[in-house]
């Protein structure tokens, strides 16, 4: 009757409502509502149901999840899995019969290969709501980072090519600290440099209606629309 001391099984006839945590592994054959965060491996069986965010080291999903699935090592969504929520881990495998509705991201970040920034219909996943509300709405040219909360400190030196900053921003939604407004859009604000630029970048939305003129050097900062 004694299973391994560090594997927890939530049996098929069991419902847990609340928070499940621990430095152990967990197997869910029943139902969990709430939050699951374990340091070991996590298995959601084919009949398992989770209305919860799931977090583990290696997470295998065979059942149904309404919640985010996050792993420190890898996530495997097997055939029959159904996930409504985000899926994030350094490595993710999704079988052909697994169904997902949400944001899927492998790695700590996926670098846009080649560094070209694109107009994404949605912002990168792990957003602090306050930050994204304060940022400029995603304009194609501006490529403003999704998390400009600490923008003030670096808005002034718009010099660093927007491309690399935006690339860094896009690549690690969590750690983005800077917003770089491409030079051509801050042209009007530049004289005011450090003092007004922070205000501009955090409180104002789009910069003043200036026809974005491509200045030399800003070419790389913009996504060119292709024919």
């Amino acid at each position, binding site marked *: 009757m004694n299973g391994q001391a560090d594997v927890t099984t939530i049996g098929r006839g069991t419902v847990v409502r609340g928070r499940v*945590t621990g*430095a*152990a592994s967990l197997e869910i054959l029943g139902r969990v509502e709430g939050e699951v965060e374990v340091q070991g491996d996590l298995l959601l069986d084919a009949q398992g149901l989770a209305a919860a965010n799931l977090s583990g080291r290696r997470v295998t999903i065979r059942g149904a999840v309404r919640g985010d699935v996050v792993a420190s090592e890898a996530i495997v969504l097997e055939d029959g899995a159904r996930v409504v929520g985000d899926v994030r881990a350094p490595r993710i495998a999704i079988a052909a019969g697994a169904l997902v509705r949400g944001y899927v991201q492998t790695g700590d970040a996926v670098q846009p290969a080649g560094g070209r920034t694109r107009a994404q219909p949605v912002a990168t996943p792990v957003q602090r709501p306050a930050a994204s509300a304060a940022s400029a709405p995603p304009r194609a040219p501006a490529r403003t980072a999704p998390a400009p909360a600490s923008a003030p400190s670096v808005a002034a030196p718009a010099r660093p090519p927007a491309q690399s900053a935006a690339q860094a921003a896009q690549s690690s939604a969590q750690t983005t600290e800077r917003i770089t407004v491409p030079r051509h859009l801050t042209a009007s604000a530049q004289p005011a440099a450090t003092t007004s630029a922070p205000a501009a970048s955090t409180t104002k939305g789009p910069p003043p209606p200036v026809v974005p003129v491509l200045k030399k050097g800003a070419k790389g900062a913009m996504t060119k629309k292709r024919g």
Partner: protein
Amino acid sequence: MASTVIGAGITIDGEVTSDEDVVVQGTVRGKLTARDGVTVEHGAVVEADVNGGPLSVAGSITGNITSTDRVDLQPGARVIGNVKATRITIADGAQFKGNVDMDV
């Protein structure tokens, strides 16, 4: 034999409801309800009201226990709470503080 085992490294803050039996080796805070037996093993910590069938306790329970069957406190058990059961045994070495109601 047990279908639900809450292992030693796991803490559940909330409600556990099962129509099978439950073995607790870790920590449960909140409420624990099982249709079948409940075993609280040595080292387990339950801070919750426990409802179930036959209960075997070798760990710690702080909360009221309601059983449709018998409750057995093993040596090393530590129970603080009222117990309602059809039968109860308290082994030598078990600690218990609370009322016992065997009037089912």
